[in-house]
């Protein structure tokens, strides 16, 4: 029995019985026994509450009571009934969510003919066509009621759409530079492999390595939340107002972090996010610069080259000045695009 793993769940029996009774009253045809309902709550509590303070730490009765109060009980009850294959529950699920599933899938796929395939895949997953040890493997088994059923469905649909399309999730030009020297545009030396060009390649590689290491080091000093917001903005392309919205959301973990760093609790909008981003850029810039100067021992003119390399448009290449065996000629170190 799932309740065995939670020592204090017994103290919440009355709360659970009242919740279950309300569900039964509203949906008398769903036929979800109390024991099953209680076990589902126990699974949810074990998943989200055990080990919060320290490994395997049990939630207190008060924590359990609050947790149960936060659960989306009607959604959970509907999910449990669908999991049992109750026909009335499936009818209700269709009534509440079918149009949303269809609408959002078509929106996601933008009229793609595969939308019907994705919708079918979602229903197949929800119903569960595989049977393991006599138990139907319905996706509803993973729904705990911690978040809304609608939000959970959104995530299920997104996964199904990805599975059907198998499109690359991060669209980065193959010309973009990376840690792999082979993919770095500046490595491609045109013309014959003269001694000078080979030497230039060696110098470029030195700058490239220093640039990547210094930028990674500068980024590593950011808090995970800061990095996450940068990723949302620069990699995922979220708009400033979308980022402002998640910072505004009262229960958002990002809002909690944001407010810990702010003495004021006022509204967050696009300009707030923009100012915050600007501060992060300056912080990364300072550390990037310091790393190149202090750790890699680069001179100011060499740092400028590294900055140009770091910000280089993959479609263009930076023309490095001719090099001598002693290194770059000081008067020729200004590269295109460096600021």
């Amino acid at each position: 029995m799932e309740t065995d793993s939670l020592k204090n769940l017994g103290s919440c029996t009355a709360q659970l019985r009242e919740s279950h009774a309300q569900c039964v009253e509203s949906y008398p045809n769903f036929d979800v026994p109390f024991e099953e309902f209680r076990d589902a709550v126990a699974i949810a509590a074990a998943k989200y509450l055990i080990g919060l303070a320290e490994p395997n730490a049990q939630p207190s009765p008060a924590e359990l009571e609050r947790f149960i109060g936060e659960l989306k009980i009607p959604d959970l009850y509907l999910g449990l009934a669908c999991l049992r294959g109750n026909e009335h529950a499936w009818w209700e699920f269709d009534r509440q969510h079918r149009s949303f599933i269809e609408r959002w899938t078509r929106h996601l796929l933008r009229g793609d003919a595969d939308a019907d395939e994705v919708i079918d895949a979602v229903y197949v997953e929800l119903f569960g066509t595989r049977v393991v040890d006599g138990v139907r493997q319905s996706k509803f088994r993973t729904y705990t009621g911690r978040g809304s059923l609608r939000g959970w469905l959104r995530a299920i649909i997104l996964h199904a759409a990805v599975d059907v399309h198998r499109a690359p999730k991060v669209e980065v030009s193959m010309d973009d530079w990376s840690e792999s020297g082979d993919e770095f545009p500046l490595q491609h030396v045109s013309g014959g492999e003269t001694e000078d060009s080979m030497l230039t390649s060696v110098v470029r590689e030195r700058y490239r390595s220093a640039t990547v290491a210094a930028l990674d080091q500068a980024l590593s000093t950011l808090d995970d939340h800061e990095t996450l917001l940068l990723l949302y903005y620069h990699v995922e392309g979220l708009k400033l107002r979308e980022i402002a919205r998640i910072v505004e959301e009262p229960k958002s973990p990002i809002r909690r972090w944001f407010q810990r760093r702010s003495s004021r609790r006022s509204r967050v909008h696009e300009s707030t996010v923009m100012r915050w981003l600007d501060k992060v850029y300056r912080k990364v810039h300072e550390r990037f610069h310091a790393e190149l100067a202090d750790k890699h021992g680069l001179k100011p003119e060499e740092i400028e080259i590294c900055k140009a390399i770091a910000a280089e448009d993959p479609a263009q290449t930076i023309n490095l000045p001719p090099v001598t065996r002693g290194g770059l000629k000081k008067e020729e170190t200004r590269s295109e695009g460096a600021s």
Partner: protein
Amino acid sequence: MKSAEQQKGDPQVTAIRRAIEVRLKARMRDEAARAVAAHPDEDVINAYVEGWLEESKADSLTSHLVSCASCLHLTAQLIRFDPEMDEAAAPSADVDEGPLQRFFDRLASGVLPSMGEDAVFAYQDNGESPDNAEKSDSDANPPEPENKST
């Protein structure tokens, strides 16, 4: 890619923001190619986006997101979701969520007595309710995040 180019200003900042974007994209491409042992399921991802995870669990997931391209993408898609579409797809208001949801809504809003005297609901945490958030909207000055390094 978007407003980045529109924000002309300090050339140093413009250069570093471009550098950050290029570098982060390259890193996430590398992360995408790398097999991640375990991803959080949809239930956890949705609870995170909706703000229902306990702080320590949320922080742990944040750490996962900055190194997992697929989960980052999933959460971004959920954040990008237009709530109006949700409302447009909802059943008509008179049969919307049924009496059971209304009961729990009233319970959560304090109209009905709670099952226990000490019951606390999510929206009451830290005294932070949507209503309170609305009140704070009147504050004309947006917050300035502190630079933790300074």
